[in-house]
């Protein structure tokens, strides 16, 4: 069966429409249920004593005073938990040479970053558990700290894990074409060194887990604020020695995730282990200070880039040297090398050239571990590429828009394989750029900029084209040996009253996944959307799947839902045909009724069909298939990833006296293939842009030389607030993927991927009259004043 998805006037048309989110009604009344809202009988609470040192040997742990604190029940050290929970090593077989050391739920013998859990205190209340932590005394023997990634591999730098032989985690060199010759032949060669600050996600709901264990059933049930419940089910089972079927992970409302909640956290593993040991419900909710020190960080990169262009400004070669520090361990199970690997894969992505050399070097440090956060590697690769493109434009005497026109891969060139060997099915760089320039009225803005500049007002316009990796296949993790599902499933069931329940393996964290699944299922089956109830986030109930990451909810989960919905419609029609003594092909399901396909005349409501099937099945022909339930799974197969693309622009004003950057307006044109719900896509992009802006202007996990995190609370770690943010204009180009009937790709990372590059280029455009530029994010007033020569430059 096929659907003409471009026709919004067809009956039951929900795909492509803005419909409100059913779960929003609950959330605006404060009736959401996040993990911390759940209370179970006999529940106890955990608080962690965390290492105050970046690197230290753990000596004697004095627990006597803590044990006497009223309400404290038990105290677990690293060794105690290690007896219940096996350690893990986060490597992937396809990232050759990637190595890491075994990591424990609670540090054993040695602490390797400030914030690593060292002791767990279990008490009747969180307050009592914290009192217990305060009464602990732990003897530490400080060890030398590896803080600077630039010197992490120097021979005199101490080793964080001596058994690994060095502090090198991963190195990859990719080369295509005659790079040196191309640079030698280039009319202009530009180069720059970029820095992206260490960031963290700052989910408003901190990481939260409530684990309970039933000894007679050998069953672990975990309420978890996670993006990947099935992945966590597999991991809890593996490391706590339980059969996978005896672990149930439930994630109800999740208060923001952005990739932060798709990893295995030592403290959360410890909580599950403690629940198993104590055979009672154990809750842990990170407080904000713990979040800063223990949520994964990301994007701590130094990248040297070089670009060669010919006399017409066409790119002839690109060279990238990326260095990143990931903390003391590669994070399980996705590995911390993926971000650097993505930088190599994505640099230069939108542009038509085939001569490319790129390397990434991933090193250890005594800082909070880094791993995947929204738009993994994308903002880094986009900033470097777009920064170099702007430099090349200047060298070649071209307008930034013109150099992009000359170099972006042509819209009719697909399928296309990039210099990094990424395969693109169908992108729309030129259409997106032209739409963007039109939306922003580029020429008028340039004219206004010139006029204002004469009055001493320094505005800058920045452009950035980008690609976004979505809908990953097993080529992302599966082939490396990680049990992270790239396929997803959906079960759709019709109940006696004609209503429909859809169970999906993808999850809802506020993006509106449940809503788009309801839209797709309503359309696939042929029922009003308010007759569809979507259930996600319960591993005991939903088909095994990957959950939420790499913007796969719509593209993978949506297609599975559509196919399951269509299959249910077929079953309904087969039964209806028998009841109505008609050909199944002459009937259809529209708005919850069986109708005559040719005339649209109503023949029977679905509730009547439900009544007969469930209560008077005796009246149906013997042997008639009567399953009103269908399950379909989907995985991409022709391309390893469904790449999307887009272009962003930023208009800023730089106050050259104070170094402050004022954001005036931001535009994004994005092509995520089929749009299922326009409003939800726009809001994903807006939210993503603001996280990208945060990285460009405010957010920074700053460390002291001895590895102390100095921006460790919400007052010190700045994120964008409403007053600083500009209004954002969002536009779309739709190039559906042919891999699926639905045609949807992802939209979750696009905003974050392109915004920092657009802001950087805008700031540098504003600074042009001063012949200076900035390339180290965040672009703080101090850094801008340093570039202007007003204040001395400080070391990064």
């Amino acid at each position, binding site marked *: 069966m096929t659907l003409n998805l471009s026709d919004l006037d067809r009956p039951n048309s929900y795909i492509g429409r803005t419909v*409100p*989110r059913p*779960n*929003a*009604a*609950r*959330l*605006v*009344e*404060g*009736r*959401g*249920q*996040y993990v*911390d*809202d759940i*209370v179970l009988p006999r529940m106890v609470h955990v608080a962690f004593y965390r290492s105050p040192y970046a690197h230290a040997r753990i000596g004697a742990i004095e627990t006597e005073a803590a044990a006497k*604190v*009223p309400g404290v029940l038990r105290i677990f050290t690293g060794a105690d938990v290690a007896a219940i929970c096996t350690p893990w090593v986060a490597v992937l077989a396809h990232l050759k040479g990637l190595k890491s050391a075994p990591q424990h739920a609670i540090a054993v013998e040695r602490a390797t970053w400030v914030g690593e859990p060292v002791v767990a205190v279990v008490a009747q209340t969180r*307050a009592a558990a914290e*009192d217990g932590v*305060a009464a602990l005394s732990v003897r530490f023997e400080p060890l030398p700290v590896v803080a600077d990634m630039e010197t992490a591999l120097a021979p005199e730098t101490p080793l964080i894990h001596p058994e690994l032989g060095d502090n090198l985690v991963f190195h990859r060199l990719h080369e295509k074409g005659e790079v040196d010759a191309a640079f030698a032949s280039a009319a202009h060669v530009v180069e720059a060194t970029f820095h992206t600050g260490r960031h963290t*996600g*700052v*989910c*408003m*709901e*901190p990481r939260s887990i409530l684990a309970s264990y039933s000894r007679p059933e050998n069953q672990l049930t975990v309420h978890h604020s996670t993006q990947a419940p099935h992945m966590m089910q597999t991991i809890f089972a593996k490391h706590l020695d339980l059969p996978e079927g005896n672990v149930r992970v439930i994630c109800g*409302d*999740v*208060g*923001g*995730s*952005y990739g932060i909640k798709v990893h295995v956290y030592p403290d959360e593993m410890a909580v599950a282990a403690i629940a198993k040991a104590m055979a009672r419900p154990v809750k842990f909710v990170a*407080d*904000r200070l713990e979040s800063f020190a223990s949520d994964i960080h990301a994007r701590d990169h130094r990248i040297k880039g070089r670009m060669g262009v010919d006399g017409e400004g066409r790119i002839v070669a690109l060279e990238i040297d990326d260095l990143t520090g990931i903390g003391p361990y590669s994070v399980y199970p996705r590995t911390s090398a993926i971000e650097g690997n993505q930088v190599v894969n994505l640099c230069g992505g939108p542009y038509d050239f085939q001569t490319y050399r790129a390397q990434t070097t991933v090193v250890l440090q005594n800082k909070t571990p880094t791993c995947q956060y929204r738009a993994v590697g994308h903002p880094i690769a986009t900033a470097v590429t777009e920064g170099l493109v702007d430099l090349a434009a200047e060298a070649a005497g071209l307008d930034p828009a013109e150099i992009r026109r000359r170099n972006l891969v042509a819209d009719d060139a697909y399928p296309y394989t990039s210099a990094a060997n990424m395969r693109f099915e169908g992108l729309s760089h030129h259409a997106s750029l032209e739409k963007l320039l039109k939306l922003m009225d580029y020429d008028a803005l340039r004219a206004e900029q010139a006029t204002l500049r004469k009055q001493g007002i320094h505005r800058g316009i920045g452009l950035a084209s980008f690609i976004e990796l979505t809908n990953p296949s097993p080529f992302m993790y599966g082939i490396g040996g990680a049990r992270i599902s790239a396929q997803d499933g959906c079960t759709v069931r019709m109940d006696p009253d004609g209503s429909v329940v859809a169970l999906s393996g993808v999850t809802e*964290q*506020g993006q*509106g996944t449940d809503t788009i699944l309801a839209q797709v299922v309503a359309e696939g089956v042929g029922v009003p959307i308010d007759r569809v109830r979507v259930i996600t986030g319960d591993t005991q109930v939903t088909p095994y799947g990957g959950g939420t990451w790499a913007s796969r909810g719509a593209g993978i989960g949506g297609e599975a839902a559509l196919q399951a919905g269509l299959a249910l419609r077929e079953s309904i029609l087969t039964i209806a045909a028998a009841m109505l003594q008609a050909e199944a092909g002459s009937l259809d399901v529209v708005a919850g009724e069986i109708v005559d396909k040719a005339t649209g005349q109503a023949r029977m409501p679905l509730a009547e069909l439900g009544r007969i099937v469930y209560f008077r099945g005796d009246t149906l022909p013997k042997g008639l298939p009567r399953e009103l339930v269908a399950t379909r799974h989907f995985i991409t197969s022709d391309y390893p990833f469904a790449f999307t693309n887009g272009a962003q622009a930023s208009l800023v004003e730089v106050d050259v006296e104070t170094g402050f950057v004022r954001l005036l307006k931001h535009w994004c044109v994005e092509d995520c293939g089929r749009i299922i719900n326009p*409003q939800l896509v726009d*809001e994903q992009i*807006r*939210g*993503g*842009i*603001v*996280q990208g802006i945060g990285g460009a202007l405010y957010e920074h996990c700053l460390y002291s030389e001895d590895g102390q995190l100095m921006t460790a*609370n*919400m*007052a010190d770690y700045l*994120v*964008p*607030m*409403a*007053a*600083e*943010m500009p*209004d*954002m204009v969002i536009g779309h180009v739709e190039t559906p993927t042919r891999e699926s009937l639905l045609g949807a790709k992802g939209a979750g990372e696009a*905003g974050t991927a392109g915004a920092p590059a657009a802001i950087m280029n805008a700031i540098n455009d504003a600074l042009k009259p001063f012949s200076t530029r900035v390339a180290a994010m965040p672009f703080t007033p101090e850094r801008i004043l340093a570039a202007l020569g007003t204040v001395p430059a400080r070391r990064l």
Partner: protein
Amino acid sequence: MTTAFSESVGIALRVNGEPVSARVEARRHLIDFLRLDLGLTGAHAGCEHGVCGACTVQVDGLIVRGCLMLAVQADGCDVWTIEGQSDTGAIRDLQDAFIARNALQCGFCTPGMLAACADLLAHDPAPSRAVIREHISGNYCRCTGYEAIVDAVEQVAARRGASPRAAE
């Protein structure tokens, strides 16, 4: 230190229009009292040091941060949380506008955000976009990018019949 802080105090107040009396630890914050003792989990604790605004509730007509006020300080007060405001319909139009405009994603910041927005509209029926942005700048939202929230507040102001002031 535990003995010094473990003293409990009797308090009597009104929460969402109903009388409540309880013994609470002197150190218990209002947000924990509401969430843990009364089961009113609508307002959230996002930072517990007064920065994020997720814990915002109304006390004697003013919005306060539930993480910066002790439960004992609310003795004798009239406290309203998102649950009570929802039940009375006091901010129904604002909630509807939030839904229509998708001014929430994960919804974690939303109860605090709604409290801040309702407070703004109570004191300034026709705020400009800049004023709205300014007023909600004490409330973190990591999901939405804020624009939808500003739109929603603007819409409600217009629907309540106030004509928006020119942007300042």
